[in-house]
């Protein structure tokens, strides 16, 4: 009863890590710098997608402003690291500070999640969606207008602390912790809120608490993702985390399956790689035909993809199912 599967999971994760590391060595050369960028982005999107899935897929709420949480994480952590670097540029070992900054970014995002979670409690469905959208936009407008963090130009010169290893480890912990949460009694309470809120309340679940909890935990991990992203791209701007970024994240969650961590992982990797290949494809098309196919075409394909998924496989790739490796025991989802 309660077979952990953590040893197996860790083993698989470790093997994958080693594999990627080996392949990316200059001597082997199979995975060059370009691929590593995509892999890093994919991993961060795993964190972002899984964290959104917790709110939308597990707790059944509808958050349309999720990237706003990532923005908080990006800006908080970015500000901390740039400040620290300015004050003591020759601090040799920066990584503990970096990790601390990322976590603080997550906590900041969690606070935002709390602020947004509460008013959203009285609202359902459409209204909740608009409310979260509104809040996401408010965050963006506020950041746009704070000159200290760069206003519309954004936070520049963020040190590139996000290494593959750090991102990988954070992603691993995100997956494990969220999996643990979902497959625990608390997670089941959240699922109950999704399935039938009235019934959940009537079996003693404090639905308010769990809805807010969904937002807070989801926001926390989004903040982590945002922080890691900012330290990968070395920049954080308000537009990066606006409504369209949130909408894109929704595509990821839906494509993978609402409520499935496995689905989110597959979608995050699949769609990130897809957008790169599409871009490459369009670039070659451009050079062949002489017509300039810009990056918007990738988004056109994405939009079509989303519509098609909704029309033909509404529940996404994995639906609500999980890969066996991630399931703790039989009978829990």
């Amino acid at each position: 009863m309660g077979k952990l599967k953590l040893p197996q999971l860790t083993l698989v994760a470790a093997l994958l890590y080693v594999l990627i590391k080996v392949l990316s060595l200059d001597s082997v050369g199979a995975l060059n710098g370009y691929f590593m960028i995509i892999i890093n982005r994919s991993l961060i999107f795993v964190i972002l997608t899984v964290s959104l899935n917790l709110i939308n897929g597990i707790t059944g709420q509808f958050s349309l402003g999720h990237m706003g949480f990532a923005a908080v994480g990006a800006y908080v952590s970015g500000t901390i690291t740039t400040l620290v670097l300015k004050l003591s540029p020759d601090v040799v070992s920066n990584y503990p500070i970096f990790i601390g900054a990322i976590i603080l970014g997550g906590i900041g995002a969690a606070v935002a999640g709390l602020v947004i979670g509460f008013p959203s409690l009285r609202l359902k469905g459409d209204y909740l969606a608009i409310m979260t959208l509104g809040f996401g936009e408010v965050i963006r407008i506020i950041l746009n207008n704070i000159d200290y963090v760069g206003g519309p130009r954004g936070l520049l010169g963020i040190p590139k602390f996000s290494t593959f290893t750090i991102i990988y480890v954070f992603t691993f912990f995100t997956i494990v912790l969220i999996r643990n949460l979902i497959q625990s009694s608390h997670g089941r309470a959240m699922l109950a809120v999704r399935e039938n809120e009235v019934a959940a309340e009537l079996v003693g679940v404090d639905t308010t608490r769990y809805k807010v909890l969904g937002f807070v935990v989801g926001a926390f991990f989004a903040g982590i993702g945002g922080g890691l992203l900012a330290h990968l791209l070395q920049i954080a701007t308000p537009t990066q985390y606006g409504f369209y970024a949130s909408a894109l994240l929704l595509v990821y969650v839906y494509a993978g399956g609402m409520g499935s961590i496995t689905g989110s992982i597959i979608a995050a990797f699949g769609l990130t790689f897809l957008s790169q290949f599409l871009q490459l494809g369009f670039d070659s098309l451009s050079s062949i035909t002489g017509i300039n196919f810009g990056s918007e075409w990738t988004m056109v394909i994405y939009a079509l993809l989303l519509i098609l998924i909704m029309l033909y496989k509404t529940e996404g790739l994995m639906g609500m199912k999980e890969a066996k490796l991630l399931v703790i025991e039989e009978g829990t989802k």
Partner: protein
Amino acid sequence: MGSIFNTQQIINGLQLGSIYALIALGYTMVYGIVRLINFAHGDFFMVGAYASYGAFYIFNSFLGKGTPLAIVVLVFAMVAGGAIATLANQFAYKPLRYKPKLSSLVTALGVSMFLEYFFSAFPLIGASPLGFPEIIHRASFKIGPAMIDNYVIIDIVVAAILMIGLTLLVQRSAIGRAMRAVSQDKDASKLMGINVENIITWTFLIGGAFAGAAGLLSGMTYPRIDPYMGILPGLKAFIAAVLGGIGNIPGAMLGAYIMGIAETFANAWNSLLGAGIAFIILIIVLLVRPTGILGEKTADKI
């Protein structure tokens, strides 16, 4: 401070509100009839603007600038808006009509993204903003203490005419009655012999046409159009519809004018406030009275 609340600003507010009203009506009608927040509606507005642009260049050589050309372009814009709305309904929304609402919402997002990026990606149209041509010669004249562009008056008047037309349609015609019936009770309407899908199609068409008209007016008044121009006005018009009571036609008009005036005043006072006023209004409405000013509370049967 006193200089803000003057005639000039009020008229500007009404003008902005007119454009919002035309867009808000589409949102509210569609929500009233199928309970869908059509996120793509702001993009129908954008399509209307581009269609007007195209129409201008097609018909300019025949007609020359002036009112006849403007009317032709208006018709074109409305047809384009209506057409794209109908297509979206037919291919993206109708198949999901009886599935969980979340899927329709997400699909609407998909349609919205598709329209924006498609227009942006298309080599001819491109992602650079286009300068909107002058369809009617610009002129300004004095009303009281204020200097008003003729475009401002045109916006207000055209919007008013369209809204009066809509009100007459909804209140007096058979289609209008059918629309009201379907928005109240789909099943009962079916039993009364109303072809519900038809009515839904008409609703999308009219809503889209109005959005298209708003696109033309906006293009004329703020002569720059780009594929993403529908996002912010769409959002604000939507908030206006929520403010007035989503699903309620007079509510949408009321909410839109309030929104237009509030935004104009807020902008005059402080640009940050101007940018955020729509969302402040949204959050206040959702917290205090989610059903809006003229909306009715519907209780869920447990």
